[in-house]
């Protein structure tokens, strides 16, 4: 079965400068055969939602290690909904304590990948969940 390539937008919202993980995930997704756009650091939620729309991404991935995941993910969620991107796969990774993972899933981030996750898990999750 030949399929079109899965398109991923990987973004770093907020002021957090930890981008080792994000860049590692970008390379893993490229190796998996996905098409990836990486935004770089310091993206506003507005810029991320716009980029998700503009790149027609199947997957919107956020990477946040500063602990600001809840306020940032809420804001990005609102804007993704405003742009009609409710049907895309939203995922988030970073230093996310156990208690916050359920909150993020309830917000609509179906994949939550705390520090220590394997890149393989992320790739498999995307393959299985992109419609």
């Amino acid at each position, binding site marked *: 079965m030949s399929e079109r390539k899965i398109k991923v937008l990987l973004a770093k919202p907020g*002021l*957090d400068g930890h981008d080792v993980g994000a*860049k590692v995930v970008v390379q*893993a997704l*490229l190796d998996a055969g996905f098409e*990836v756009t990486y935004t770089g*650091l310091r993206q*506003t939620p507005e810029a991320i939602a716009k980029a998700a729309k503009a790149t027609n991404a199947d997957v919107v991935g956020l990477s946040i290690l*500063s602990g600001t995941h809840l306020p940032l993910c809420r804001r990005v969620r609102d804007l993704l909904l405003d742009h009609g991107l409710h049907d895309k796969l939203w995922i988030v990774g970073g*230093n996310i304590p156990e208690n916050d993972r359920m909150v993020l899933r309830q917000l609509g981030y179906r994949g939550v990948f705390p520090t220590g996750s394997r890149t393989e898990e992320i790739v498999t999750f995307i393959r299985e969940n992109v419609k």
Partner: protein
Amino acid sequence: MTITPTRQSEGGPRQSKPRASTESVSRVVNESGIEIKPLYTAQDVLATGSLDTSSPGEPPFTRGIHPLMYRHRPWTMRQYTGFANAADTNQRFKYLIANGQTGLNVAFDLATQCGYDSDAPEAMGEVGRVGMAVDTLRDFEIAFDGIDLDAITVSLTINGAAAILIAMYLAMAEKRGYDLARLRGTAQNDILKEFIGRGTWVFPVDPSVKLVADTIEYCAQVAPKYSPVSVCGYHIRESGAMPAEEMAYAFCIAKAYADTALARGLDIDDFAGRLSFNFNVFGNLFEQVAKFRAGRRLWAKIILEQYGAKQPASGWMRMIAGGGGFGLTIEQPENNIMRGAYYALIAALGGAQTMALCCYDEAYTIPTPKAQRISLRTMQLLIEEMGLTDTVDPLGGSYYVETLTNQMEQKIVEVMQWVDTRGGIVKAVADGIIQKRVSEYAYQRQRALETGALRKVGVNCYTESEEENPNVELHPYDELGAMEQIDSLRRVKAERDNDGVEQALSALRADAAAGRNVMPALMQAVKSYASVGEMTKALVEVYGRFKEPTQLWRMVA
């Protein structure tokens, strides 16, 4: 003939494969790419260079920058600390000092680090989260209240907004009656590495380097005992670089700052002795110790021979060595206490002037007071119980360590030459080449961890069959404290002389536009209680903002 599996461990082999050999041992290659033999003799030292017979305190300082090293005074203990607001951080500072800490290492929140005020939209959710929030001089007055700045030296972990916060620190000290000509302290202020890892840049690369030169020049004239720059291989290593690269990139960066300062007409001896370094300690013990010994020797040669410095102290590679965050794991966090002990041992055997350790819970949270105390006690144990301060450079003369020191020096030189072929470090960073290379190493490492080729205790070997909930207490984020910080900023703005602030900011803009040293104008602005956000904005109007070269990652497989 026996072939056994390749031995692989962290900081160990990167690309080694088992090979046939007459001996029944596997091949071992360290992270910097040097093959490790099962046994070293005097022949190996001579085959890789010569036996370094220089004494500590004498160029090229291989064995240490001081003749007596820790016998004279143990390393300074300086745990990285800061959270919420100035008042809370001041309390934690005093707790650490009461527990025997001998220096301070200040963590700022991301808004401060990126030059935003606490009430800026960009600061949403970040005020006081990963460090102390600082908006105006008022915050510094509170943070250091009751702390003797002669007895306890302060290191500011600040980069993008470094010129502003250095001015703030000097102004605070001056106001409290300290003589700037004698004031000691350090600012991280290494912006080039922020473009490679850590990411708290503000301005484009060229004006960013210009600002570093401004601080070097100003301090050479006004605060000659203050260390305006601590060049960080540390974060480049955290971002994925191997140890030889960590040191090579740091030296390239330090040379770039020195060149800019020299171009201003400063003499190398005016400032080289106040440049300091920050290096990482995770990985193979012997490789790190050799890295520090080789680095000291090479830096002395660079400054004394290439740059022609006259004063031996100009060639000192003074360093804080510690941290090791990249080596710590979120799995089985208690193991990080043991890792921290070995990392401290590495720093002590490596001849560090200052030491800081990541706390065992730091992968999860702002460390608890108890976790910080354990790190502090780890360093104190080495001093009080383990004999690490008894004699200088205890590994000196070991065939293995001397050979490895020679080899690491060669590796560092090779990487520095590679950077030169790419047009020098400033261009290579602006082009994103270093970022790309370091990131590729990080990816290789992650893959090796996932395949099990790189062994990491608790992560891919000796794992717990059932995932335990880690026994780590999470530091709560204080939303109320963030609102109080914003209120406090508003109060300062209401109370200050706003015409004076406007004048100071205009003068700052004018000096920046004319290409003058902005430090005198920043001192004025800080003293008028202009905010970090206002001063940054004035400079952005002239310099612009950095645009990250992300096209390197915007790729289709």
